[in-house]
């Protein structure tokens, strides 16, 4: 599904790569390594937020190295969730659907589905500002999977959570594992991905 070949990216004195890896449907790849090793940068390159300087990224055999982020079959869950503070929960969740031209009914239906699936249906009309850390994560996850992306990138999804919320979040991530989706989960904590990952890879600094 996803094929990365000799990917290199430099910023300042730091160089990431060359990295090569492949990821198949249904795989849950955990990339762990110390802070500053370039894990988040790697996810940004796959998502298209940053542009690769050397190397290729292919999806199902098609090159997407220079495809803009909005056209990639990729969604990302950011470490700080990156929820839009001026929008309600439902507007956050349906934002990717709005970008793809879904009708109001379609958006509502999908929001209801995700709300039930992730137990956030009671939060739909609330502002995201007053939500707890665990609620924000669920909303961010709902938004990321709203359009059923083929590849889900998780940037340190558990690091901002306390122990109790972390266990809850691991249960949540187990839910979103799917045979039609590939997931890359980056973390500096190897222990948290033991129950989740089908494959692990170490990221050296």
């Amino acid at each position, binding site marked *: 599904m996803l094929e990365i070949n000799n990917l290199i990216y430099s910023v300042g004195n730091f160089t990431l790569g060359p990295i090569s890896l492949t990821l198949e449907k249904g795989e849950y790849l955990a990339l762990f390594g110390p802070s500053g090793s370039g894990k988040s940068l790697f996810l940004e390159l796959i*998502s*298209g937020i940053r542009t690769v300087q050397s190397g290729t990224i292919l999806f199902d055999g098609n090159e997407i190295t220079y495809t803009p982020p909005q056209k990639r079959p*990729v969604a*990302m869950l950011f470490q700080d969730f*990156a929820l839009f503070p*001026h929008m309600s929960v439902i507007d956050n969740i349906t934002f990717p659907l709005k970008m793809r031209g879904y009708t109001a009914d379609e958006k509502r239906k999908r929001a209801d589905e995700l709300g039930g699936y992730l137990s956030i249906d009671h939060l739909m009309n609330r502002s995201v500002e007053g939500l707890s850390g665990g609620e924000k994560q669920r909303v961010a996850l709902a938004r990321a999977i709203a*359009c059923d992306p083929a590849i889900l990138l998780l940037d340190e999804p558990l690091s901002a959570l306390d122990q109790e919320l972390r266990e809850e979040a691991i249960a949540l991530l187990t839910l979103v594992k799917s045979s039609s989706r590939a997931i890359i989960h980056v973390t500096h904590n190897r222990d948290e991905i033991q129950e989740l990952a089908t494959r692990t890879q170490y990221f050296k600094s």
Partner: protein
Amino acid sequence: MFLGGVILLFLIAPLVGMFISVKSPELFSTLTDNAVRSSILRTLLISALATIAASLLAIPLAYLLARRTFPLKGVVEAIIDLPIVIPHSAAGIALLGFISRDSLLGSVADSFGITLVGSPIAIGLAMAFVSVPFLITSARDGFAAVPIRLERAAETLGAGQFTVFREISLPLAKRSVISGLVLMFARGMSEFGAVVIVAYHPMTTPVLIFDRFNSFGLDYARPVAAIFIVITLLIFVILRIYQKR
């Protein structure tokens, strides 16, 4: 504290003195004077239209300055600040040369039967010239305060660059953009130096105040000045309330 009080007194005393000196019958007759009313309306309308027209170009420029680095960016920012530092009468002279019949712009307008000098268009141009830096600066600071992360997140969720600007950046910078628009409007409507050069007639209120003072003295100009200051103060108070909300 004492020194601060002196400077505050310096700012407020002339205004208070003026309001005390204005007699009610004079104020009433000025309020009902058609020349004054049409001048105030004209000033507000032209400044509003100039603000709206300039914002279509100024706001995208502000976004660019907040988000992009490019060669000579410092020069661009210095150019934006120019209208604040140059004498406004000098700005008026420069604008006059820019829009007169023998200029490129003036001759193109003339070919369509439009004389720019001495027109509301010239007034709008002068107002925009001196006041647009306030909009650009305020909007730029607003856009710079929007976390880039949110814009990047929007891109990963399917938003193109213009959609990111419209759905994320602009709403989150709204307060600063609106403050900038109000500042530009207020500054524009108060402009005298550049406006009086490019268009003495039709008279904006600052020009009318000067004309009355020049022709008939302080007592005749004072009521118009008082009324106009009340209007500008009202706009200022509304802006402060909005900023505090």
